């Protein structure tokens, strides 16, 4: 990651955190007030929307900030109907504005102003509060993303129409991962062909509730994330891919282990998940020479968990294929044999047993009569 860890500023971070926590607590208790009732936008525009007067403001930190606001940008965004003070609540007091606290820089302004979003978006805020991003922010990493870092401020656009833009936003901080992704099969499809299906960052990691992908919990859940698309028959058929991969994975050692691990997680999860073999951000098609599961590379990939194994070892994995008379015939016929043998043997047992049981019951019912008949015969 190239994300630079900003210098620790205890006072501002504490303030930000306090504001955010307070905001979280109050989110539902206090719904937004009547939008823009107190201060009309017209009051702001003479200064902030004056093309001839592009205000430069010097922040307490010494940084400069343009106070010019492009009205058209806001009108063209999803928030076109909002008023300035709906978000800039600190400006409700009118003019002159309150002085900024000592030492504030641009980042302080951004982090502080982002706490205003939850007034309308409490659910998104609650989700964020569970994310690694929020965790980093709470630990004092001021570079961790605030709402506007991903969504923009005045120019917020609908999220579902911008898959490539979303990836680029993430790439803004996660440069290395972006570079790997951009070369991957998913990345090429999204960034170059505008695919509506191929996975973006958010499809796997979520958007607001981004969890730590190094955690065991994520690892154990990950095959089900891939399965959302790769077990989807309709979507896979569009690309000539097998939708059987998830079912066959669960039927084999690795998948069964992961499925049962999720039932009661304990310790580390060693069994391979999808990305252990296929790669994650840099994933390419399985036939590619660079793919870790290509014929040339498969043994090396297996050896990462199974050191010392030899070339035949890879054949123990059926490569997500269902055994058939042509592919893995020995496995196919072994299965077939037990499909015949088990019902055959057990049916034979049950027939013999039922027969014996019925016969026994009949005998017992008849025997008192036989007994009586015998006694009668013996009587003179």
């Amino acid at each position: 990651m190239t994300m630079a860890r900003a210098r620790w500023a205890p006072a501002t971070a504490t303030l930000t955190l306090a504001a955010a926590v307070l905001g979280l607590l109050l989110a539902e208790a206090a719904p937004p007030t009547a939008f823009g009732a107190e201060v009309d936008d017209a009051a702001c525009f003479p200064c902030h929307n004056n093309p001839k007067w592009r205000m430069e403001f010097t922040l307490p930190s010494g940084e400069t900030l343009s106070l010019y606001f492009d009205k058209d940008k806001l009108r063209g965004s999803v928030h076109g109907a909002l008023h300035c003070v709906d978000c800039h609540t600190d400006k409700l007091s009118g003019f002159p504005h309150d002085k900024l606290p000592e030492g504030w820089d641009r980042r302080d302004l951004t982090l502080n102003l982002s706490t205003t979003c939850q007034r309308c978006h409490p659910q998104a805020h609650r989700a964020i509060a569970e994310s690694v991003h929020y965790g980093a922010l709470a630990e004092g990493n001021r570079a961790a993303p605030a709402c506007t870092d991903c969504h923009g401020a005045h120019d917020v656009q609908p999220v579902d129409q911008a898959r490539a833009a979303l990836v680029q936003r993430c790439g803004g901080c996660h440069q290395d991962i972006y570079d790997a992704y951009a070369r991957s099969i998913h990345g090429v499809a999204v960034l170059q062909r505008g695919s509506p299906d191929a996975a973006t960052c958010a499809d796997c990691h979520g958007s607001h509730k981004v969890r730590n992908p190094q955690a065991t919990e994520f690892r154990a859940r990950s095959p089900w994330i891939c399965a959302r698309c790769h077990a989807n028959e309709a979507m896979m058929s569009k690309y000539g891919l097998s939708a059987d991969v998830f079912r066959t994975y669960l039927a084999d050692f690795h998948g069964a282990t992961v499925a049962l691990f999720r039932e009661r997680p304990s310790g580390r999860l060693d069994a391979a998940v999808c990305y252990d073999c296929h790669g994650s951000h840099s994933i390419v098609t399985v036939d590619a020479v660079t793919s870790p599961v290509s014929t040339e590379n498969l043994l090396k990939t297996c050896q990462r968990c199974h050191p010392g194994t030899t070339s035949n070892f890879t054949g123990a994995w059926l490569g997500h294929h269902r055994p058939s008379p042509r592919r893995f015939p020995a496995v196919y016929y072994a299965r077939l044999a037990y499909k015949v043998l088990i019902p055959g043997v057990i049916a034979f047992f049950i027939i013999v047993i039922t027969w014996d049981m019925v016969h026994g019951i009949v005998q017992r019912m008849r025997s008192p009569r036989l007994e009586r008949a015998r006694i009668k015969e013996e009587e003179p």
Partner: protein
Amino acid sequence: MEGRRYYQRFTIPLLMEHWLLALCFTMLALTGLSQMFSTYSWAKAVVALMGGIEQVRFIHRLFGLIMILESIYHLLAWAYRTVVLHVPFTMLPRPQDVKDLIGVIKYNLGLSEERPRFDRYSYEQKVEYWAMVWGTIVMVGTGLMLWRADLVTRVLPGEAIAVARVIHGGEALLAVLAILTWHVYHAHIRHFNKSIFTGKMSEEEMEEEHPLELERLRRGAIPNVDRASIRRKQAIFIPLASLIVVLLLVGLGHLIQF
């Protein structure tokens, strides 16, 4: 129960073997089938109860190992009884067993008045015993293959592991279903045969279940015991068996890794 006579049927070590086998079988079936049927809720419940999949695997391998050791003991104890002590190998299948099966079918069909009279082991007990022996060989063989797939694939193609997995699961399911039908019916329902727990059987039961053996016992046909011969054979058997045990344990020690 005045005058009720009992016949000794099993010695204490054999009773212990049965308990051990029942324990191993139950634990292996529980831990194995819950992996085989991992998508079913009962399997998930078993795994959760045992503390997770890693523990389930450990328990499975542990009881697999105990079962292997018990099988080695069983084989040596049998060899000792048969070769050294000259105890007749009554579990060996004979043509008479097939005739008995046909006889039972005829009797149940009403084609014959008399139910076949059995010796020490009836055909149905032999079916069960040899199915158990065969099943154990298959399960131990395929189980060890799966345990050390890395070693196996140095020699065999990888597909052998996939086949071993199919056989291990199929044979297990067959064994469990066979126990639930054949064994439960013959040893518990038709007549609860307590002799494997008490070691003895009453005269009445013997008359019903093992009349030919009872006749032999009544005749008092006790084989000549040649103490000198036994001692001579012991002198060969004991060192040889010890050597085999040591070799097997060393081999097993190299093979298994938890």
